[in-house]
């Protein structure tokens, strides 16, 4: 017990560093939640809105109608017609679809329709990041084809063609969600908890490294090893301190994420809160075990810092916190199975979809979540045992 207290005193003496480090990395996890927009909780089907920009160099009735149609149902981003502004918009992905209507397009289309030849080309750039831009592109081309069709068949002036096309293109295909019970688990909370794998791992293991740096200092270590204390009780006290560190980090992340992204949504049942807290606690235990292992290896504080950050980052990537696991190649998914992060992420996903299920099918889902957490816990125990064995053999070697 007194060893444990000493460990805690050492941690307290480094409180400034620990507060800065834990505070900063936990802020990283929480801040990522603000980058995620939560889906609306009602059952109305919301068509995807794309950010679009139209540069109308033509100024005819046809081009104005096309610009209007593109903007309809999408978010129009005002854009100046100079090369730099357009480059900015595309390179920074500010618009998903950028349409440039060249001068003389309207008259050219009318003439082409009368002759049965091809209309002048439109210029467009679609974003690489989502399919929303490509969808607007199809819609715009379809509308322009409608203008051409009416110009070729009913004829008349540009205004008449626009009126006819607008009337025909007004209809939409209504869609609605089936009336299934959904809980609308907040996407932001899910992202925060999944991304927390990295900050939790790095934060806990780095803070433990600070403790280990003090304990591994040569004079301290010589005195500790010379004492009659057994390797097991030494290891237990140290692991106790690691657990205390993990508990602080866990409390920080769960309180912050639940308060900011969970409670406000009102979409979570108490059981989900309990399971989420249990999942993060389990992962925090894994982190504490790894921190303990790094400490037992006797590596320097900097090396432990490096290991903690790299492993934390790799785990969070393999666990699907950066990109969804579904997008990862199979080989990486297989590697991910060998890390605790993927099991943790699966548990979070399982808890998230718990609210969507009928009561009858909740039990197997619950079982699956508990199984994931069990595997996570097994990782923690395995790593802890390796750490204990290594610490013991290292101590024997040094004596």
């Amino acid at each position: 017990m007194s060893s444990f207290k000493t460990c805690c005193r050492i941690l307290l003496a480094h409180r400034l560093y620990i507060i800065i480090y834990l505070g900063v990395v936990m802020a990283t996890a929480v801040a990522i939640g603000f980058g995620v927009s939560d889906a609306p909780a009602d059952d109305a089907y919301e068509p995807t809105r794309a950010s679009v920009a139209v540069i109308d160099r033509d100024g005819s009735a046809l081009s104005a109608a096309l610009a209007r149609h593109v903007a309809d149902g999408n978010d129009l981003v005002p854009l100046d017609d100079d090369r730099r502004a357009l480059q900015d918009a595309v390179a920074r992905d500010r618009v998903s679809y950028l349409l440039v209507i060249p001068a003389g397009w309207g008259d050219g289309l009318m003439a082409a329709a009368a002759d049965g030849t091809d209309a002048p080309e439109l210029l467009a750039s679609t974003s690489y990041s989502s399919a929303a831009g490509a969808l607007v592109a199809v819609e715009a081309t379809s509308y322009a084809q409608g203008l051409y069709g009416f110009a070729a068949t009913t004829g008349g002036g540009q205004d008449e063609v626009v009126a006819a096309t607008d009337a025909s293109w007004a209809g939409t295909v209504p869609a609605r969600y089936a009336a299934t019970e959904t809980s609308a688990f907040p996407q932001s909370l899910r992202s925060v908890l999944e991304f927390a794998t990295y900050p939790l791992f790095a934060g806990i293991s780095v803070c433990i490294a600070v403790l280990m740096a003090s304990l591994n200092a040569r004079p301290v270590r010589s005195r500790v090893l010379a004492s009659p204390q057994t390797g097991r009780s030494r290891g237990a006290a140290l692991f106790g301190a690691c657990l205390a560190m993990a508990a602080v980090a866990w409390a920080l992340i769960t309180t912050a994420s639940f308060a900011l992204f969970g409670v406000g949504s009102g979409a979570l049942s108490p059981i989900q809160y309990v399971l989420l807290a249990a999942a993060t606690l389990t992962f925090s235990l894994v982190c504490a075990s790894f921190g303990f292992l790094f400490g037992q290896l006797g590596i320097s504080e900097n090396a432990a810092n490096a290991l903690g950050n790299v492993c934390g980052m790799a785990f969070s990537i393999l666990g699907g916190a950066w990109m969804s696991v579904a997008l990862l190649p199979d080989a990486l998914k297989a590697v991910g199975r060998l890390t605790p992060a993927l099991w943790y992420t699966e548990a979070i996903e399982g808890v998230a979809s718990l609210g969507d299920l009928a009561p009858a099918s909740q039990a197997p889902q619950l079982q699956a979540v508990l199984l994931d957490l069990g595997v996570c816990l097994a990782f923690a125990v395995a790593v802890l045992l390796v750490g204990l064995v290594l610490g013991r053999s290292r101590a024997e070697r040094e004596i």
Partner: protein
Amino acid sequence: MLQSIAVCVRTLARNASLIFWPLVFPLIMAVLLSLIFAGVEDSLALSTVRLGVVRDDALAAATGLEETLEAISSDDAVSTGDGEGEADGEAARVADLSPFTDAEAATAALEAGDVDAVLQVDDAGTPRLTVDPRDASQVSVEVLRQVLASYLHTRTAIERVARDNPAALVSGDAIAAFRSEAVRTARLSLTDVAPDPFARYYYALLAMAAGMGAMLCAAAMRNLSPAASAVAARRLVGATSRWRLLAGTIVGAWLCEFACLAVALAFMWFVIDVRFGGNVMLIVGALAVSSLMACAAGGFFGTFRRVSIGAISGITCLLSLFSGLYGPASQALTDSLEQSVPVLIHANPLWQIANSLYALLYYDTLDVYAQGCLTLAAMAVAFFALTMLRMRRQSYEQL
């Protein structure tokens, strides 16, 4: 002074856990990122919607709808018909059809999760979709809606022509005019290279490595402040003037970090095949000024004896969130903050580093790049000034 530089370089080069950050860390992460992105590129193709179709009289009465459905579910159908937005790989079919005799059976299948959406034609002949809210792939459903809308619009248009100008319909020209591909859209190329969704991650990774590299200079600085280390105590009683030691340390740390980052960049460029724009000199220039800024910041941090230099990794971890490293959510957060509070994002040195490289890739003028480099240089000067201020009263005479 050359001697001081050589001493600094040798000391740092022998400290493997410090050199790890700017050298090995980006290599590991770049390999990991490239593995992930290879998978993401493959899985960007749209998925096929499992569509339940209610085959009743209303469907039979809707002219051309059966043909449209057949077309989108046949093997050679291309999902959006857009071409340019599609990956080169095989295109998925828009929908897989499962026929149902009545609406109840279809709804039951939707609830059971056997189909993703149900299509039913109402009395007015308008197709309606009911979508399973649990289906994550809204984009695929949107593509389907688009195809159906296109069908609906063309049908309405042709009905209108039949009313206004029946003669055109008889010859078949009208249908051809609406269905031909007379209106085309050409790809608008605004940037020298097509936007690469993944280049940003690698730039942000280089920026993070540069930020972590600040630890090099911070560690070297510890060997200069009296009472921080035994080495510092010995060096400071020597005959070499303090400013020579200081300048030597900073230049030495800068050379180390610059060399490490250059290796990391060469690895990304030639092994991972990341695209870099501009000429080599400009890229190397950006790297030089980035590592100078990191050294200056690290040097400033190193003057605070009470805080372990490991805290730099925590701060870099937070700043990397705002350079868009951690996946799409962190990029969205960075971009939206840059729109609303640009000062906040522009004050992030890691964003400036990533942005300078990004500017070289996308803009045909150098002003954004120059602006980024100048900002970094100004930050370096500011950090140097602060370091000098802090070092001023830390000689033996003052203690």
